[in-house]
């Protein structure tokens, strides 16, 4: 099979839509184009039926009931709705939120905005493996805590948080628990009851669906979660999210969810082997490599490695026919090293030297081997050009250096 260049290995940033998903969506643009809220004619009814079908497909993937799934424009909106919606609705009960330093900006910036409006937020640190400490979580809880929000899987390092254990603590204390499960849904088994979550965000374009659509799971029993809507209007989605539904997008999300549910086990088996092959291949060829985050509690298709003494941008320049990222896509506009890697305790220099690999449904063994070879050559070349590597090989302790900077 001829390999296509450039190779895409940035599946955490986004994924191509599965052709079967696109096929399912197409009729809803020009043929079954009705507004799902048009109650009086067949155009509306058939759109509504398609939406309800998709709702069930999403619910089945996460072990929820269809009534508990709200459609949104994506996970950023879902995160905003969950966090702001709870903060407003439960403000009489308290104003303290617990989250984590490695959350996606959609969660962190939402929390920061609430802080400006008077809320108190605790940002739990992570340990070296990227996971929070359950003891620290317990210690942070107060009688004013109304929400715990911790992501299921991290977008930069792929690490999985102990969600079921967090859920158990939240349940015990009677606090609502939200999880941004964007990177986990469709990749690892996610069940809202086993995980004891009350709110869950997911996104279509991270699981081979279209961009611009996502969902928020909102628990209806034990307890019944209420949200203050963030977008007001016609009262759609049980009053929680107004706005004409993106029927083609929702149909796509549903189809993507169904395909993930059916193919997850096989995909996981294949991708974790490829991921391990990539890691093993690089480790065999190169020294001074550091995997960022736990290898044990990790998404099967994810790998984040620091290539010591080589700077990330120069590394990416050398592998310009491979699409990966250094730091996360969301922070690529800034020149600062990844805040997630810093939270792990990696020095700034290792954060600058990191590459994130995200494998996916169409990644092949040939592509993995190509990347191993290409990266090996580029790293070796750049290390020959690296004064830091030279000093380390001469036995200089870089941590004791006095550097001259502006």
């Amino acid at each position, binding site marked *: 099979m001829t390999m296509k260049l450039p190779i895409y290995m940035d599946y955490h940033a986004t994924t191509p839509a599965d052709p079967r998903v696109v096929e399912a969506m197409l009729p809803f643009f020009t043929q079954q184009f009705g507004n799902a809220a048009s109650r009086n004619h067949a155009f509306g009814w058939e759109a509504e039926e398609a939406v309800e079908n998709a709702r069930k497909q999403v619910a089945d993937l996460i072990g929820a009931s269809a009534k508990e799934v709200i459609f949104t424009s994506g996970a950023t909106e879902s995160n905003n709705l969950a966090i702001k919606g709870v903060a407003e609705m439960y403000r009489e009960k308290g104003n303290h939120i617990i989250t984590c330093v490695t959350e996606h900006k959609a969660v962190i910036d939402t929390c920061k905005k609430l802080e400006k409006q008077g809320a108190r937020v605790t940002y739990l640190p992570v340990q070296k493996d990227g996971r929070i400490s359950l003891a620290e979580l317990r210690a942070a809880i107060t009688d004013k805590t109304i929400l715990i929000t911790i992501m299921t899987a991290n977008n930069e390092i792929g690490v999985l948080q102990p969600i079921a254990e967090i859920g158990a603590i939240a349940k015990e204390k009677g606090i609502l628990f939200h999880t941004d499960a964007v990177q986990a849904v469709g990749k690892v088994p996610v069940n809202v009851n086993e995980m004891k979550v009350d709110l869950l965000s997911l996104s279509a374009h991270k699981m081979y669906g279209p961009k611009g659509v996502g969902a928020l799971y909102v628990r209806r029993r034990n307890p019944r979660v209420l949200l203050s809507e963030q977008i007001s209007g016609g009262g759609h989605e049980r009053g929680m999210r107004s706005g004409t539904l993106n029927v083609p997008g929702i149909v796509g999300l549903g189809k993507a969810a169904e395909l993930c549910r059916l193919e997850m086990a096989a995909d996981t088996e294949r991708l974790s082997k490829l991921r391990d092959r990539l890691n093993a291949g690089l480790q065999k060829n190169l020294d001074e490599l550091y995997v960022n985050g736990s290898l044990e509690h990790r998404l099967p298709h994810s790998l984040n490695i620091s290539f010591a003494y080589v700077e990330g941008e120069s590394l990416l320049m050398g592998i310009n026919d491979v699409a990966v990222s250094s730091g996360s896509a969301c922070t690529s506009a800034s020149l600062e*090293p990844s805040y997630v890697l810093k939270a792990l305790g990696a020095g700034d220099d290792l954060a600058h030297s990191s590459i994130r690999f995200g494998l996916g449904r169409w990644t092949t063994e040939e592509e993995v081997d190509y990347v191993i070879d290409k990266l090996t050559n580029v790293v070796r070349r750049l290390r020959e050009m690296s004064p830091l590597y030279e000093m380390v090989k001469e036995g200089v302790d870089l941590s004791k*250096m006095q550097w*001259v900077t502006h």
Partner: protein
Amino acid sequence: MAYSNKVIDHYENPRNVGSLPKNSADVGTGLVGAPECGDVMKLQVLVNPETGIIDDAKFKTFGCGSAIASSSLATEWLKGKTVDQALAIKNTDIVAELSLPPVKIHCSVLAEDAIKAAIADYKSKQDKDKGVPATAGHAQPNA
């Protein structure tokens, strides 16, 4: 990140990568930058003691494509210049030659610093021979 063709050329075909013997009396070494900032440059010059001309220059850089290109270009320009002519090289010349965008100007500044540090180191070695104390100006291993 759109790189100019010249930056790409220096990245793919860097000139004068390598090291000169640090302890030689005719070699000046400049080590500037810091790993936390993502930029470290080591620049060395070999000065002909009779003519005062830089016969050879070598560099090693930890940094982005623009940093590598700036230091590679610096070594190209240094060869054949006198020590005083080397000190006249400005970062703005490097920016112009490589068409560096504003966000990468600091790479050229670091290259100019590296040149000056290398020359200062060379001069301090000459002064030491004459009994003049060395001046600080580049990174020292352990305090």
